[in-house]
């Protein structure tokens, strides 16, 4: 009996320790983002894309295509690569229809993000047509961040935020945080885009 008890205790301890050391799957499945619906006034300002061309932000947003906006910078270490990887995944899913959705990454480091830096960045993420990286004067970039209620004064303390906009309205789905690809695709579908 003593032997059995000892073995049972050891078994219990082993099971508890296994449970303790096993990866938490629940944690992986939990949502790490917040979704809200917002209205923003988009300023009619000129920015510069990766080709060095002047573009008007309002015209891009009102182009009649679904638009997804995020804020990144070319030498960012952690958050931007994750956001950009989601854009890559979406474009891969869209395949030949990559231009069906207009992806706009706005630089929050306009002094360093020249057209060449932005082109190199997009190349690194294997961007397809339909994904533009925009820069501009410090003042204009600040104006864009403020218009999306996403202003940060120090780029190193920025946070992950993505905006989805469907044509024909001025509402935006705001996603604060980092999504998985499936969550990202799901949010885009919920916004009304057939994928």
């Amino acid at each position: 009996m003593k032997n059995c008890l000892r073995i049972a205790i050891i078994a219990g301890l082993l099971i508890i320790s296994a449970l303790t050391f096993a990866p938490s799957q629940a944690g992986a499945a939990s949502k790490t983002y917040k979704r809200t619906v917002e209205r923003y006034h988009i300023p009619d300002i000129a920015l510069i894309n990766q080709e060095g061309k002047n573009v008007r932000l309002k015209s891009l947003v009102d182009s009649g295509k679904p638009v997804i906006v995020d804020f990144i910078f070319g030498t960012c270490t952690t958050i931007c690569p994750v956001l950009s990887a989601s854009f890559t995944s979406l474009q891969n899913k869209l395949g030949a229809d990559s231009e069906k959705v207009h992806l706009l990454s706005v630089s929050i480091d306009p002094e360093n993000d020249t057209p060449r830096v932005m082109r190199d960045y997009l190349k690194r993420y294997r961007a397809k047509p339909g994904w533009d990286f925009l820069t501009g004067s410090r003042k204009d970039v600040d104006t864009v961040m403020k218009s999306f209620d996403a202003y940060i004064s120090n780029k190193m303390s920025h946070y992950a935020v993505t905006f989805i906009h469907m044509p024909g309205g001025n509402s935006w789905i705001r996603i604060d945080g980092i999504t998985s690809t499936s969550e990202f695709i799901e949010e885009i579908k919920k916004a009304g885009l057939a994928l």
Partner: protein
Amino acid sequence: MHRLYFPTSLIAAVCLLTLLSFLPPPTVWCAGIVAAAPLPPPEEVIRLGERMYRDGILPSGSTMQAVIRDDVQVHGASFSCVSCHLRSGIGSIEGQILSPPTNGLKLFKPYYQYNPVIPDPNKPPPKNMMDRPDAKPFYRPAYTDETLAAAIRFGVNPAGRELNPVMPRYEIDDRDMSILIAYLKTLSAEHAPGVSPKEIRFATVIAGTVPPDQRTEMLAVLDAVIKDHNAKAKKRNKHLNYGDNRIVDASFNYPFFTLSRWELTGPPETWGSQLEEYYRKEPVFALLGGMASGSWQPMHDFSEQHKIPCLLPVTDLPVVSDSDWYTLYLSKGAWQEGDTAARYLDRIAALPKEARVLQIVEESATSRAVADGFEAAWKELTRAAPVTVTLGRGEQLSVSDIQQKIRKEKPDVILLWTSGQTGTILSGLAAGSAAPKRVHVSSTLLGSGLAQVPEKARPFTFISYPYRLDEGKELFHVNARAWLKKNSAPVTDLRISSKLFALTKVFLEPFQVVKRDFNPAGQGSGLVIMEEQFEMMLHVRRNYYRDYLLDVIGMMADANSLAFERVSFGPGQRYISKGCYIIKLSPGAQPNLIKESDWVIH
């Protein structure tokens, strides 16, 4: 009474099966033990491991593949280890995400990380940070090769805790994993040369013939920053002052700084070997400031070769590179002025594509650097190369010569990258029958003689100007000037002290002396690594690694500047001032500078 009887072997088997069902697949815990093919020699293993860590390229040459947030596919070119854990492996903080250390010294020891908490003035100071009840510590056991492989592949630490979902889960086989782990064991494993418990040595390089007033101004600022640190360290090494009359004995020793002067003489070709000799006699942690009569190239090459940071040399002739690592420049110097002129003409002046550009270049390194900057940007903007006239050393361009060139080339724009003769040439152009539409000149080449631009030429003369246009009246500027004055550093038109004031940020901030307590085990000599979270100062974490100094600077917030309109930082960015104005001059002997462009032109 009936007794239940369980055979021992059955219980053991059930336990074992239960245990195995909770463990990750065998590849996880076998990783690193079995290598598929023999490993290359140790030096090659480190080179291949470094390439995996920095570039995300497997030893086979293929790109590393990974998954983040369960299903976001990423590849090594966009998401290598260095993206988050940085070159030194000491980690980073960006936004809400803290990337912990991945250097061997810390990976293979138990790791305890705590939040810095401001002491409660109503309670006696704790003996050390771990005693603080409101600290929120993070603990993990030491990694082994096997558990580290599991973390890299499946995102699970040795305590079984899942890592942040943005940590990629890499697809790496056993052999490649052993190569990566071998590299991590060497990463930031020992403090850099020039560091001892009592002092950290620095040097400044004065190469060639540097005018005495320039040399005096530079050394005054360097001496001031060293003095500033040492005075604070001296005070802090005696006692810890929490304020409100609570003083306790110091628990951490701040090393003092020393600064040597490395004087290089003779032709620039010999500077490299002179630097080697100085370094052999006296290894230093980093180089500060510095001046040279000519290009900074020899010092730049020395820094790259020996992996020695060089912070803010005062030079108009930096090395312009996208990938070099060890020299942090104030700006791209004269090169930036040419680059700005090209971008201004393309975007703001909207010069037609077919417009003709005549470029006059003197036989000097500075003139050539301005032209190089212009030509590189002009090419990037897909413009036809300018027609270039290169003057021989000391050659003066006569008015008739330039008029002849103009008649021949019929340029829409003249780029006059000349120095002392600029005023004369501009006077000649203004006196001609048809004044040119626009002439671009460089303020660095003009030197202190901006007023040499004759009044009649000012309407068509555009000047590249890489400094701020006002003195700066914000509190930052007032305090900065007061600091220089207090430390007897002259603020002159040479702009040396106003440029080097940035050292109080890029040099003093990383080594900041703070009024906090420390746990002495943090240095890595103890059995357990303990350090504060959310602090990137070298002293606080005692990570005296050269790459880490540059990693820390890369994480700094953008800032004000005495000399420039703005300075900015970022991982891998090596020119802190990235802007330049295009200006014109108002009439008069003391002309005003009239802004024709923004600070940064894309």
